[in-house]
């Protein structure tokens, strides 16, 4: 009897594992099904170099299939536009500058981590990161571990949090110990 009960219990546990509720592919599919979005963001850098955290805010606009715009309102106006392989940077008092994501992974891949997540593009993520998923649809965390050596020198891990097909937060842990935490507002349209 006990044996049978044990076997049933084992089977049950096996079934629970096999059910593995949420795979990265599933998340990517649901993200890929989403539409264009604009969200407000607040980004905070916690650093041992600073007496007080550095706060930036603005909005993030994603236009399908693959355009991401990061517009900073405070403290200084600034605009990053990611299109294809190119990132165009516009800041006050300087001519616009364009860099290539693949040639400047440290700069570009961070933006690519957001863009690729928003469009559910696992292949692009995997170009720079080892991708792991924690949690379930109501509250998931995408864990990105840099595989590119240049990036790995700078970034320990990126965690992207979300609910369903929506991003709620993002955290970058730098190798130097700095933590950059971004919260996405509810203003999604």
């Amino acid at each position, binding site marked *: 009897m006990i044996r049978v009960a044990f076997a049933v219990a084992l089977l049950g546990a096996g079934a629970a594992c096999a059910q593995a509720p949420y795979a990265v592919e599933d998340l990517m599919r649901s993200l890929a099904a989403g539409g264009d979005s604009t969200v407000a963001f607040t980004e905070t850098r916690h650093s041992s170099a600073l007496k007080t955290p550095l706060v930036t805010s603005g909005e993030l606009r994603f236009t399908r299939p693959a355009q991401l715009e990061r517009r900073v309102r405070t403290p200084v106006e*600034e605009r990053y536009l990611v299109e294809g*392989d190119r990132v165009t940077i516009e800041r006050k008092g300087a001519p616009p500058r364009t860099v290539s994501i693949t040639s400047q992974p440290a700069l570009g891949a961070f933006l690519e981590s957001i863009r690729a997540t928003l469009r559910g593009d696992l292949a692009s993520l995997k170009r720079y990161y080892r991708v792991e998923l924690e949690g379930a649809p109501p509250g998931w965390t995408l864990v990105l571990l840099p595989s590119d050596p240049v990036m790995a020198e700078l970034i320990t891990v990126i965690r992207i949090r979300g609910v369903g097909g929506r991003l709620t937060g993002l955290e970058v842990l730098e190798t130097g110990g700095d933590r950059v935490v971004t919260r996405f507002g509810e203003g999604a349209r």
Partner: protein
Amino acid sequence: MRRGAAVGLWLAAVIACAWIAVRATYTADLTAFLPPSVTPNQALLIAQLRDGVAARLVLVGLEGADEATLAATSRALAERLRASDRFAYVANGAGGLSKRDRDALLDHRYLLSPAVNAEQFSAAGLRAALERTLELLASPAGTLVRPTLARDPTGELTTLLAAHAGRTQPALREGVWFDVERQRALLTGETRAPGYDLDAQAAIQAEIATAFAAARTDPGVRLVLSGPSVFAVRSRDAIEQDAWRLSLVASIGVALVLYAAYRRAALVAFGALPVATGILAGIAAVAVAFGAVHGITLGFGATLIGEAADYSTYLFAQRARGEALAATAVRVWPTLRLAVLTTVFGSLAMLLSSFTGLAQLGLLTFVGALAAGLATRYVLPAVVPARWATRDAPTVPAPAALAALARGARKLAALVPIALLAAITVLTFNHARLWENDLANLNPIAEAEKRRDQEMRDALGAPDVRHLIVVTGATREAVLQRLERLEPALAQLVARGVVRGFDTPTRYLPSVAAQRTRQAALPEGSELARRLSTATEGLPFRDGLFAPFLVEVERARTAPPLVAKDLEGTVWGLAARALLVELEGHWAGLAPLTGLADAGALAQTVGALRDPAVSLLDLKAESDAMVSAYRNQSLQLAGLGVLVIGAVLALGLRSVRAVIVVMLPVLAAIATTAATLAAAGTRLSLLHLVALLLVLGIGTNYSLFFSRFVPDDDERLRNAYAVLVATATTLIAFGALATSGTAILQAIGTTVALGAALSLVFAAAWSQPR
């Protein structure tokens, strides 16, 4: 007994020569063949050809697949090539600077950066820089700025890097350099081996191909190599391949003709003995006199000594029935001796040349012809078994036809002066475009390949290897300072669109004076600390964060100025080394220009500086000038050679009229050959000149033998027959070369074959019936 002595002496000499030849140094260094530098610019050109960056640059293109595949291949290939120690650097646009380069720049940033000045280090200047850095820290670039924040809060490294990124850069796709228009991923590599070391360059190119085969994932991807060293290896291979193949064809043809004439295979083999002896002796002489034998000397020298291949023909084919070879040798010797001596003394003129290449060629011919002549006279009769010589003496085939031919030829006697005059007229009319000065046109490189090289160069923004601004000075420092003063003028040229860009060594190694000025702009330690505390007021930086910055500025302020050695092994160091050349005790700095649009405006700007230390160097114009100087001296020496030959003939023949009879036909043949080539649109080069010198040698011999005194009709026939056989072998050997696809071989082949044929006809026309 005397026979044995001759053979013994010959054997000893051959062994000694072989020993020297085997141990001799052979060089393929093209620059060794160039003239002793006359002007500083030419010295620079030679330095550039020998060891310049341009000569060591290999351009690599990948094509035949989509961007992502090509980019992945480019990355994998670059990684493999970087792992090889054959390259000083390999660049494909990915990854930017290596860690080592970045560290070197970071360490020396305050001495290297042109942006360092007193204003920047005032409290206000520091404040502005810190605010900018804070903004960056709050952006996605923050991750990049953060690691060096404490050391470099003013972002000097970023400024330094941005100044370099501002230069013309190739387009990037998928993170690597691309020629977008042609869907071609681009890489460049600078080899450690100098460009002229073709063996090393060939090995490097093979290594690239191997690395490519391992790196490519898609079989559709194709590898394209370009650059001066690639072309040089390719043309050498083409020449070698053609030379081997055609030599084989020619050897078989010549052997068949000689076999038909002698009816003995062994005699054909013995016939090669004098010329082989001559080449060996010539090589040994050059090795002893010059220390090293150049590959080109060898090639041209073997061509010139080609005349000696006829010596044995004159001996074997002249043999009468039942005559001992030794007797034939005695009989023919007066004429053969003159044939040998005209060549020997004719080459004496070249021996006196100030150009190492020509002098080597002269010595090789001088010694080679002499040795071949002596071997024909004294060794051949001694070593050829008497029974072969006495039995089966060669019979002249179709004697009646040959006699008729000779009579017919004499009716053309008037043709010789007419042809000479006509040829001189044609050459005079064409004199402006008679000569080829562009070395590139002798390269057996297809037009399509040259075009592709230009495409890749344009896409990479690589210097066009042609236009440089040269600044000279007594020391490296003097050159760097002059270049720094010149920079505004160069920037002006870019602004006006005269050139697209320029590079200068001061970017990589500023002058000591400039570094001292920068050091003077850095505040002393406590002063900087005071200004910094004013500047950071109200900013969120933690107190004491910038201690490393204070230390590093103080270190830079008091450091000894940066010298070339400090940058060794970095891209910066390489660039500085490539653009600063030491020339016999003084220095030259090179500023390569990219995308020259208006040569006139450039020359005017440089001229307006009125600075004798600054000059514009057009490598192509310099090389053209050098080639034409080379050729002019060759021409003068050849002219001198003709006079010497005339003098030798006058002594030997003891009659001015006889000298004219011998020399006019061959001079007419040479002039007619040159005129024919010119009329066909061929521009004459040094190669044609060497070929014509050979024609002079063999043509003189034809005339000598035709005009030689012969007692009877039988011997006259044998005499004509010997010349005919000699001509036939020359026509076969050089006719084969004329079919080559390689410009160099084709030029030599055509010229000699045409010249030999004309020499035969003209010499026969002026032959004396006695």
